[in-house]
């Protein structure tokens, strides 16, 4: 190389030229192309908010071309026909009748399973130290609203229930009762009307005690009666409305049943069934007395139960 060029090459060698330029991290934003895009370009409603736009009569590929979903010829293509019309002949729904009718007396209850109650207790949303009524279940959002006739306790996930709870509901299934009592808790079923459900949720009615449920222990004397009456008056002051008791036979028999853990089962005599009409066999006046008195006068030494009449 000629000397001048050598000098130049040495001068250029002094300037370090790296193939890869290292850059301090705080300068990285300068390298990247930064575009300021707002979130406005990403906004969209949920999928269910959008519906397929159907424009009929716009070609075969749309699926609604040519006849535009009306079929071929006839009154329906050119105009309209009333629904259920049979051309003037008696319509089918008059000839055969419409199926069923609206049942006004069905009981509508909000179901609640044991696994959800345990989950709520674990999360600290239900207090197991206090009685759990429909008010607590609704306010903790264990059930969303309460149906007309209250809450029914069911036993899905019953093996998960480990906390003893004191629960008061409208109805409870046999397996739910067994599971709660196995865990050391108690189930009580009591009667609620739709008016009662509303007032209980508003805090204007006692959720547990009604006239027939409350047992006021007092002496069988004038003073005792006065004490009981005073206690009742005090109770009346607490809430604006009084929790009703059932009046229909069906409801009364349900809540008198010990098997249902009904709150009126204490009114049923020992050994008797809950029915208001049918007497429990073996508890009537005839079964005991007459057999005993005529035991000796039988012929052939036959047993009492051998009698035809």
């Amino acid at each position, binding site marked *: 190389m000629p000397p001048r060029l050598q000098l130049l090459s040495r001068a250029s060698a002094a300037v370090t030229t790296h193939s890869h330029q290292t850059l301090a991290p705080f300068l990285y934003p300068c390298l990247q192309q930064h575009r*300021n895009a*707002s*979130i*406005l370009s*990403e*906004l*969209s*409603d*949920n999928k269910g*908010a959008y519906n397929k736009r159907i424009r009929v009569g716009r070609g075969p590929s749309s699926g609604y071309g040519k006849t535009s979903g009306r079929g071929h010829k006839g009154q329906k293509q050119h105009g309209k026909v009333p629904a259920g019309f049979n051309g003037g002949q008696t319509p089918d729904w008059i000839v055969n009748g419409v199926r069923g009718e609206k049942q006004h007396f069905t009981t509508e209850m909000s179901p609640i399973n044991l696994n959800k109650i345990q989950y709520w207790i674990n*999360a*600290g*949303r239900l*207090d*197991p*130290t*206090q009685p759990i009524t429909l008010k607590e279940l609704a306010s903790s959002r264990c059930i969303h609203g309460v149906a007309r006739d209250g809450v029914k306790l069911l036993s899905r996930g019953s093996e998960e229930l480990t*906390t*003893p709870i004191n629960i008061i509901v409208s109805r409870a299934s*046999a397996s739910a*009762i*067994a599971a709660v*009592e*196995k*865990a*050391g808790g108690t189930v009580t079923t009591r009667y609620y009307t739709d008016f009662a459900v509303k007032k209980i949720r508003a805090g204007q009615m006692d959720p547990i005690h009604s006239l027939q449920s409350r047992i006021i222990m007092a002496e069988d004397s004038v003073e005792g009666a006065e004490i009981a009456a005073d206690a009742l008056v005090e109770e009346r002051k607490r809430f604006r409305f009084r929790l009703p008791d059932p009046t229909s036979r069906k409801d009364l028999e349900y809540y008198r049943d*010990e*098997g*249902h853990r009904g709150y009126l089962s204490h009114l049923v005599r020992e050994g008797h069934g809950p029915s208001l009409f049918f007497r429990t*066999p*073996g508890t009537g006046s005839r079964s005991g007395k007459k057999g005993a008195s005529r035991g000796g006068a039988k012929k*052939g030494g*036959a*047993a009492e*139960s*051998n009698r035809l009449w």
Partner: protein
Amino acid sequence: MAAKRLKTSADGLLTASRYTLPTRQCFSRYLTTETTSPTTTIAQAYADAQLASSSTTPILHDRPNIQPPPPRVATPKPTRPTTFTPQSNPFAKTATLTSHAFPSMEPLTHATYPGTHLLCPMRKDILHRAVIYEGDMTRQGTASTKYRSEVHGSNRKIRPQKGTGSARLGDKKSPMLKGGGVAFGPKPRDFSTKLPRKIYDLAWRTALSYRYKQGELICVEDMIELEGVHEHSAPRYLLDMLRHNNMGHANGRTLFITLEERPALFEALEAERMGREAKALEVVDVDVKDLLELGRVVVEREALEWMFVEHEDDLGPKDKLVSWERNQEALLK
């Protein structure tokens, strides 16, 4: 379908039904007659007959397959939990927002606001609904066309119905013809839609929360106003201030939200090419779209609190800003 029926075994049909009545031994009599000689009397035969039956059992259950629930058994109860600590509300958080001086942007103090106002979870669908609602409401809706009845012209039939060899035509205003009316064209109308106030308020606070979480919500303690700056130099002053603080066009632009009109600031931003750097709005003129549009939002503290109070209709009385602040003061005491 018939083949499927054939495959099912006929066992169920051939064997006796599963539901069997209990053998009722009560009231049944087996009259067993011994072989007696014909000479014995009927009475004697009757007397000798063995009337055998078992003791009666009361019919308590006529459906033996249904098991009644087990009676209450006195089992030793496990101890109930005696204490209960209700779950603390996981949504009861507080957001801390630093407030700065203007125009130095020096941090002065910080303010706390409830999580319901500045820590709302992201809801893009609600933001979308609010932005579309505002857009619909903003539409002018003045597009207009003339129908065939409105086009200027006579109603005379152009050519005879038959005989010309061409298509039949009525007046010359038909949409088929050039110069005719529009068949189904636009007419001036109101495009506004409705959105429940509570959803709109939630969208407002969701937008503010989004900006806060992104670090794009900047609070200024006092007024956002250019003081002590001559009106001729105000635009350049503001431009320099924005560039210095990385708030200008190169950084996505800034929206200034003020409680009232700030003459100097607004005038400075009306200057040439200042619109591409920043925008200023009074708080009453702000929309959800404005909150989301630009790179950041610089808001006066009073304006921010005005926005909170104006848009908290979806919250209960206990959760509103004023009640929350009172609660906080009570807790501190």
